[in-house]
């Protein structure tokens, strides 16, 4: 083995992780294009970028999920790492990950979760629980964490769970690198904070600093500019798969970060800001509150397409299901065409009876059943209408669905096929047709074009335009700023469950929406 030149133990000395010329191609799209990233020993390094910037692809390459394109080089403490990174040996190489879904098992105890790696793979026929609990308590004492080893993880707060996940990753790393303690490894925290309260974030940061104090490095992936400025030493910003910049955090302003994340050059790209129709409000929502949202009030006019968006954890994505009566614990009131109902009394059948339709984002989990035919999936809400003298025959269902499918441009338009046989875009067109046939007065959509190809996306937008022109009110929850800019009359920006801004007219550009999403954090906090 070649002993690297830079093995100084000083916290700032030497490079822990070096990535050179990393590219990754998915079909025709380049998710990463020649990205280089250098993380120093003992450093907290931020990784910033909006959706689709390539952050998660980069993390997945590090975790061994993706094979990078040839020509890339990844070094840990000066030693070249084999590519693709062997997933089973990631930890031994000195990399550990904490993902947003922390990977804890709620029904097991804190100790069991902490040592799950050893318990799952070790060949121990006589587990000494008293000893394990004692070791866990020692670990928590070292980090000054108030965690009880015997407590079930499900009873912990969200903050405590995040802390446990980070300690676990750090301990795994320490365990894996104990025979070469001069190379303590790199801990990757992939958006650990969006669902945590402010006080919890501070606790988490304290833990991160304790980890780096021992010489380990941390990559901190986040949407939140303020958090990155608070915790990191340096930060790298990606946009559209390109490395934009690596900056010293201390000397970079909030605005400078936002500018690099969004980019400023494409302002004139979308001129088609739609004009808000001057019509009376059709939908009035008041005092809406629920888990992670509210209280808030807003209105949607007849024929208006209203977008709601924000960063992960801001609560906007809960809105469609809440207004449909699909969630528990929601309070407030919704009035459609003057007829009001309390939201805690609203159920999906009640909402449907009032002309509300809801298309969830989870296409084959909540919106449609993959193992049943396209015809049945489309015809389901109007079954009683389709029954003839002989009852509801497959032929009548197929004829009806075939007609709607042709209008919606579903390809192939064969109602007998199972829904799972259609591509994402065509399945979405069919499921849109399912709801549009009910002539909704309020249409609620959650990420309507996620995983949908460009052509189908256009057709879905056109169908939504027609529906709005017909006098319906439409609410779209999405993180696709481009889509919101092109489709909506008005966009509400959410931050920590509240409406932080409302954009209309000329403000409706991809960049302005993105800018408000990132800036909203400071404004509320």
């Amino acid at each position, binding site marked *: 083995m070649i002993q690297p030149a830079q093995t100084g133990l000083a916290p700032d000395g030497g490079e822990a992780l070096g990535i050179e010329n990393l590219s990754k191609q998915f079909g025709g799209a380049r998710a990463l294009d020649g990205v280089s990233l250098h993380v120093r020993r003992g450093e907290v390094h931020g990784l910033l970028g909006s959706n689709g910037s390539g952050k998660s692809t980069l993390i997945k390459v590090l975790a061994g999920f993706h094979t990078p394109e040839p020509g890339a080089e990844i070094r840990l403490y000066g030693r070249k790492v084999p590519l693709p990174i062997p997933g089973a040996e990631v930890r031994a190489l000195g990399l550990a990950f904490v993902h947003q879904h922390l990977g804890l098992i709620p029904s097991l105890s804190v100790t069991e979760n902490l040592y799950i790696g050893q318990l799952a793979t070790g060949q121990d026929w006589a587990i000494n629980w008293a000893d394990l609990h004692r070791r866990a308590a020692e670990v928590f004492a070292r980090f000054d964490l108030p965690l009880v080893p015997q407590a079930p993880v499900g009873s912990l707060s969200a903050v405590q769970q995040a802390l446990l996940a980070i300690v676990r990753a750090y301990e795994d790393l320490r365990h894996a690198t104990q025979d070469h303690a001069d190379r303590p490894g790199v801990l990757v925290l992939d958006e650990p904070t969006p669902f945590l309260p402010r006080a919890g974030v501070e606790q988490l940061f304290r833990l991160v600093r304790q980890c780096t104090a021992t010489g380990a490095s941390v990559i901190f992936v986040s949407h939140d500019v303020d958090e990155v400025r608070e915790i990191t030493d340096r930060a790298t910003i990606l946009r559209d798969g390109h490395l934009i910049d690596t900056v010293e955090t201390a000397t970079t302003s909030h605005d400078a970060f936002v500018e690099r994340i969004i980019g400023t050059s494409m302002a004139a790209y979308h001129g088609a800001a739609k004009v808000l129709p001057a019509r009376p409000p059709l939908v009035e929502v008041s005092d809406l509150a629920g888990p992670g949202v509210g209280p808030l009030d807003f209105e949607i006019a007849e024929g208006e397409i209203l977008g709601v968006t924000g960063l992960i954890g801001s609560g906007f994505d809960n809105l469609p299901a809440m207004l449909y009566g699909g969630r528990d614990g929601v309070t407030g009131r919704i009035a459609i065409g003057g007829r009001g109902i309390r939201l805690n009394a609203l159920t*999906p*059948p009640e909402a449907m009876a009032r002309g509300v339709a809801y298309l969830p984002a989870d296409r084959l*989990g909540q919106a449609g*059943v993959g193992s049943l035919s396209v015809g049945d999936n489309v015809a389901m809400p109007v*079954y009683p209408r389709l029954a003839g003298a002989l009852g509801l025959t497959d032929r009548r269902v197929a004829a009806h669905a075939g007609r709607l499918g042709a209008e919606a441009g579903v390809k192939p338009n064969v109602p007998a096929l199972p829904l799972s046989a259609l591509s994402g875009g065509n399945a979405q067109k069919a499921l849109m047709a399912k709801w549009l046939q009910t002539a909704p007065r309020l249409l609620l959509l959650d990420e309507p074009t996620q995983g949908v190809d460009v052509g189908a996306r256009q057709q879905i937008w056109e169908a939504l335009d027609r529906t709005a022109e017909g006098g319906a009110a439409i609410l779209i929850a999405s993180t696709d700023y481009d889509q919101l800019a092109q489709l909506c009359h008005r966009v509400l920006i959410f931050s920590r469950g509240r409406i932080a801004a409302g954009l209309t007219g000329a403000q409706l550009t991809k960049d302005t929406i993105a800018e408000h999403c990132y800036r909203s954090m400071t404004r509320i906090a």
Partner: protein
Amino acid sequence: MTETPPSSEAYEARIAALEAKLAALEASVGDATARVEWDWKGWAERYGLILAWIAIILVLGAFKPVQMFAWNSYASMLGSNAMVVVLTLALIIPLTTGDFDLSVASVMGLSSMLIAVLNVKLGYPIGSAILIALLAGAVVGAVNAFFILYFGVFSLIVTLGTGYFVNGLILWVSNSGTIAGVSMDLVRAVILTRFLGIPVGFYYALILTGVIWYVFQFTALGRRMLFVGRGREVARLSGVNVTRVRAGALIASSVMAAFAGVLYTGMRGVADPSSALAFLLPAFAAAFLGSTAIYPGRFNAPGAFLAVFVLSTGVMGLNFLGVDSFVQNLFYGGGLVVAVAISQLIRGRKPMDG
């Protein structure tokens, strides 16, 4: 380049022609795709069980032609399996909505014993005894539904428990003894009257099969039940009252099981506390074997009907061959596992979703 530049109308006409061509092409592709499902593979999948039935008859007939090719054997086999058909139909209702009901055989036994006790010991007219037995079935179904839906307990566990509980009730009301002498009116109405040589009990089962088939295949309720079983969240968000549908299915299942008990009593004029329990496994085997035929991939009434008789033909033939009675267990137990394996293959090895 001799043509003059076409006008915009000519362009539009050409585009229209191209679009028509595309539509025709798409239609033919669609037809072809639709036709694929009618080719031999789909056909074999749907009607394979009938071929298997014929094969069983021919193979066993080669050894015992006199009995296997006699109409009388089949007439009595069809009649004496009527309650198994009804029990299987009772099972497929909650299976379609995504719940297991292991208490059906116990409910069948309870119904049978209640009729005997009320009619013979307490002197109730047979009509009221039957009515009370069916009501008792509804009560068990409601109890099942309450624990499964209100407490959110897995249906397998709840019905395992209620089934055992009901077994205790049967022993209690019967004093653990067999009760004979049930009204001959019932016996006449089930087995003594024959049509085309087959006891009328068979026709009750046939009619019920038709009813369940119609409900599953040709009504909005039946199709919504399928959505509830396959995608509970999809059904809920599409405005289906999932709880009500599941509760209804569990109650219907128990009432049908109680009706199977009526047929069982009528067939023998006797009620005993334990023999009904032996029908749970044959009913499950038939339900799953039936889900591989006629409408492959879903629990369906004609498939279940067919499967009951395929399995019982096999058992009958083996009896003719003089094989010991343990072979019945081998046949039904093996049949259930094979049937589930085949239905899994049809689903393309996706995890079972009810």
